[in-house]
C-alpha cells in the first residue's frame, strides 16, 4: 500500500534576494511498514524533503500525497490533526524539554492532542524503547542514546503512520546509534509505520528497504533491498 508519495516536488528557499533551490523535481514513493533512507552529502536537500513529507513545509510545485491526499490543500487545523495523529518526528539533537522528565516528554504529544490515559500510554512506550524505570529521570540525567530513545518513544506515542527521522544517530556513538536504529526498524516492522530517515552513516543506511541517493536537490538513484 502506498502511504507517502512525492510527485515532481520542487522547493526553493528565498534568502533576501538570493534563490536557493533545495529540491528540484523529486519523485518518491514509500509504502506502509517500510524503511526508506535518504543518503547524500550535507546540503543536498534531505531535511527539506523530510519537512515536506511531514507536512511541516510545502512544495513550490508538485505534490506531497499522504494516503493519496495532497498536503497543500489542507488548512491549519487539518495539518495540526495530521501531525498529532499520523506523523512522528525524531531529530538529530533529540529536542527533549530539559525541565520535563522522560515520562512527561513522551506524554507531551498526547497532552497536546488532549488525549486520555496519557500517562499509561507513555509508560508503555517507554517500556517499548527499553527505558522502564527511567520515567522520572530528567534529560540531563540520561545518556545521549537514552535521550534519543526517549525521543523515539515520544515520536511513536501516537502510533503514527509515518515516522520521520532526520539523522537520528548523528549525535551518537556507534553502539547507542545501533540501538536507536534497531528501535526505528522495529517501529516499521512491529507497528507498521512508514519510516523515512535521512542519514549519512553507512550503519543507518544498512537497515533500509529502499535507499534514495540524493545530490544537489535531486534524486540520483533509488536502490531497493528486497
Amino acid at each position: 500500500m502506498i502511504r507517502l508519495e512525492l510527485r515532481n516536488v520542487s522547493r526553493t528557499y528565498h534568502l533576501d534576494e538570493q534563490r536557493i533551490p533545495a529540491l528540484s523535481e523529486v519523485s518518491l514513493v514509500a509504502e506502509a511498514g517500510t524503511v526508506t533512507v535518504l543518503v547524500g552529502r550535507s546540503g543536498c536537500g534531505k531535511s527539506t524533503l523530510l519537512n515536506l513529507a511531514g507536512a511541516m513545509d510545502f512544495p513550490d510545485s508538485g505534490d506531497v500525497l499522504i494516503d493519496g491526499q495532497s498536503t497543500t490543500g489542507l488548512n491549519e487545523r487539518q495539518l495540526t490533526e495530521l501531525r498529532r495523529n499520523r506523523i512522528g518526528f525524531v531529530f538529530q539533537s533529540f529536542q527533549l524539554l530539559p525541565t520535563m522528565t522522560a515520562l512527561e516528554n513522551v506524554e507531551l504529544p498526547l497532552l497536546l492532542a488532549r488525549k486520555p490515559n496519557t500517562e499509561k500510554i507513555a509508560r508503555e512506550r517507554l517500556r517499548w524503547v527499553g527505558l522502564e524505570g527511567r520515567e522520572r529521570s530528567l534529560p540531563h540525567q540520561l545518556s545521549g542514546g537514552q535521550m534519543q530513545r526517549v525521543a523515539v518513544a515520544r515520536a511513536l506515542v501516537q502510533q503514527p503512520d509515518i515516522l520521520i527521522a532526520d539523522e537520528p544517530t548523528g549525535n551518537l556513538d556507534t553502539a547507542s546509534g545501533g540501538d536507536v536504529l534497531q528501535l526505528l526498524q522495529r517501529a516499521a516492522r512491529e507497528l507498521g509505520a512508514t519510516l523515512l530517515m535521512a542519514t549519512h552513516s553507512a550503519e543507518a543506511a544498512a537497515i533500509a528497504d529502499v535507499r534514495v541517493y540524493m545530490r544537489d536537490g535531486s534524486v540520483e538513484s533509488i536502490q531497493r533491498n528486497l
Partner: protein
Amino acid sequence: MSVLFRTLILRPLRNDLLRSLLTLLAVALGVAVVIAIDLAGDAAAGSFQSSLTTVVGKVDLEITATGGVDERWIGKLAALPIIVRFAPGMQAEVKIEGVGFVTVYGIDLLGAEQARGCGASPALVTKGISARLANRFFINGYPFCKAKTIESGEANFAVIDIADFQQALGRFGKLDRIDVFVEPGEGFENVQRQVTAALPAGYRIARPGARSDENQKMLRSFRWNLRILSYISLVVGAFLIYNTISISVVRRRAEIGILRALGATRQAVLSLFLLEASMFGLAGAALGLLIGRVLAVTMVGLISQTVHALYTSSTPAPIHLGLLDITLAFAAGLATALLSAWGPAREATRVVPMEAMGRGSREVRVRLRLWKNLAIAAVLAVAAWAASLPGPVDGRPIFGYLSTVLSIAAAAMSAPALVAGVNGLLRAPLLKLFGVEGLLASRGLSASLGRTSVMVAALATAIAMTSSVGIMVGSFRETLLLWLDGQLRADLYIRSAEPSSAGEFPPIPTAVIPRLRSVPGIADLDIFTAFEFHYQGQRATLGAGDLDVQRRHARLRFLSGDHDAILRSLSHHDRAIVSEPFSEKHHVHPGDSIAVDLGEHRVALTVAGIYYDYSNEQGYVIIDRTTLLKYLPDQPPTNIAVYLKQGVDKDAVRREIEERTRQFPISVAPNQTLRQAAVEIFDRTFAVTWALEGVAIFVAMLGAANCLLALVLDRRREFGMLRYLGAATSQIRRLILVEAGLIGFFALLLGAALGLVLSRLLIFVINKQSFGWTIQFHLPVAALGGAMLLIWAVTVLAGLYPARVAARLKPIEVIHEE
C-alpha cells in the same frame, strides 16, 4: 574595543530593536517623572516674591504682627533718629465688576500719582486687567479711575492709596505690614536694632525674602514626599535595565568565551556591558528630559492647586529647565543604568575562555543560590524593621525611606524562592486548569527562574508601591471623613466671599454679627477668628473661637485627657489647645508653655491638650475668644459657624441670612459644601500621586512585555519543536499568556505582601514624621482587589504581543538553530 562593541553590543541591540526600545522607553519614563516633578514643584513653589516690587521698589525690611500692625507705629517709628522711610502696606482680594477677583494693594501713593486727578481716587492697574476695566470703576461702591497702566509680567493686580483702601474696604487702624526702606548711607544693622528696640515684643521685623524662605521650608516635606514618589518609576526602570543586561550576558556567553580566549581582558568585558547600560541610561535621560518637560506643564497646575489649598498663596512661576535639571536627568539615568547593570556585567567577566556551558547548568546554579538569597532577604527584612524605629532627622523621615528601600530589596531577594516554591505547588492545579499549556508554562518559568524572578520583583515593586500608597491614601481619606464628622457639626458656615488660599483669612465685617443674631431659628453662633502667626520661626495658624459653643456642639478628639474638662479650662485663661501636627513639629506637650505673639503682647500660653486635626500641616493653636479679646479687642471674625434650633429648615435660614447680609461680601455655605470641598482638596492633592503610580505601573508593564518577549525569543526552538509534536498555534499562544498570567500572579503575591509592609511604613513612619498626623489604618479591600485584578489583566495583556510572536514562528526555521 570598538569592533567588540559593534559586534557584541550594537548588532544584537539592533537585531532586537523592539526590546531595546522598550527598555529605553522605560528608562525615559522613569527619568521623565523625576524631572517633571522637580520642574513642576519648582514652578509651583516658585514665585512667592511680591509682585509689588515693580511698583514700590525693593523693600529692605518688613514689620508684621499677629492680627495686624497698629498704624500709629508709622508715626512713632518716624521719630527714630535713623534715615529711613516707613510705608504702610495692605492687601486684599477684591471683586471688581467685569474683571472678577483682583488682588488690590493699598500703599502710600506718591504725590505725583495722586495729582493725576481723574475725578475719582486714582488706581494703578496692570496691563492684563487694564483692557477689561472701564476708565471709571468701583470697589465696594467706592469710585476709582485708571490713573496709570503698569507692566508686571504675568501677575495681575491693582494699586490704590492706603487711605482709599481703608475707606473702600472698611478696614481701619490696622495695617498688614509696614515696609521699611533704608536710605543710602544708613547702616542696615543699626536700623534693625533701633526699630526692634522701639517695637513692642509681639511685633516681628524681618527681611521680605524671609517669607519666601519660610514658604520653601513649609513646602519641604510636601515636595520631598512627591520627589520620593517620583523615584518609584526609576526603581522599576532599574529592574528593567538589570534584566536587559542579564539577557545580553546570557545570550552572548559563547561569544564572550571566544573573545576571552582571543585575549580580551575581564576589564574589557566589564566595560563593554557597562557601556551598553550607559547607552540606555543616557539615551533614556535625553528622551526623559523631553517627556518630563511636557509632563511638567500638566503637573504644575495640580501641584500649585495643592500648594494654594494646603500651604500658602503663590503664583506659579514659568517652568524653567535649568542646567541643574539636565544634570539631574543624566545623573539619574546613568546612575540607574550603572547600578542595575553592575551585577550582570560582573557576571559576564566570570565567563571563562571558551566556555561552552549550557543554559541548563546555569539555572541549576540559580537554584543553589535560592537559599543564600533567602538568607540575605531575611537579613534585609530585619534591617528594614530596625530602620523603621528611629525618629525623624531634621524633620525628615530619612530612616523611614531607608526602611522602604530595604523592604523592597528584601522582597526582591526572596522573589526566586517564592517563584520556585509557588510554581512547584501550582503544577497540579495548572495542569488541571490550563491543560498541557499550564504544565509547559510552569516548567518554562522554572527553566528561566533567574530572569522570571527579576521580572516578578520589578512588577511586585510597582504593585507594592501602588497598593501601599493606595492603602495610605484610603486610610487617610477614611480618617479625614471621620474627623470631618466630628469637626463639622454646625449647620451653616459663614466666611468672607474673598477668595483666599491656605494661611489667608479675610475678615468678616463685624456689623454682620448683630444681623445674624436677629435671624430666627438660630441656636448658637461660634464666632471664630483665625490668623497666621509665627512660632519659633515657622508659620502656623492661631484660632480663637467660642469654646463653650464648641464644647456643646462639636466633638474634638484629643490624644489624651477629658474633652469637656480641657475645653472648659480655656475660657478667660492664657491657655490653648494645639493640633497634633503642631505638637509634633514643635515638640509641644500638654502642660508646656508656648510663647505666642498677640498684637503687641508676647503671651505665654499653657497647652491644655492636643487634638487630632487633618486640615493643616503647619498646625493650629486654639484659644478661647475671651482670651483673644483681652489682647486684640478689635479683631474681626473670619469664620462664623451657625448652629440651628432643632427642626428648623436649614435652607430657609440660609436664605434669610443671605437676605439680611446682602450688602456684605460674605458667603454662606451649608455643612455638606464644606465637607465636599475638604474631600475635593484631598482628592486633588493625591491626583499627582496617582499619576506617578500609573507611570510606575506602566513602566512595569513595559518590563513584563520586554521580559516575555525575551523569553519567547530564547525559547523559539522549544516552540518550534512543540509544533512538530502537534501543538496548534493557538496552544503556543495560550502557553505564553499562561506564563504572563503566572508572572503576574507571583508578582501580585509578592507585591501584596510587600505593599502591606510599605503601607504601614507610609502611614506610621513616613507620614507621621513628615506631616505629624496620626492616620487610622484602613484596608480598602474592594478598591485594592479591583486594582490588583486590573494589574493582573494588564500583565496578561502585556503577553499578547509576545504570544503572537511565538505563534508566528516558523517551526522549520527555528528547530535547527543552535
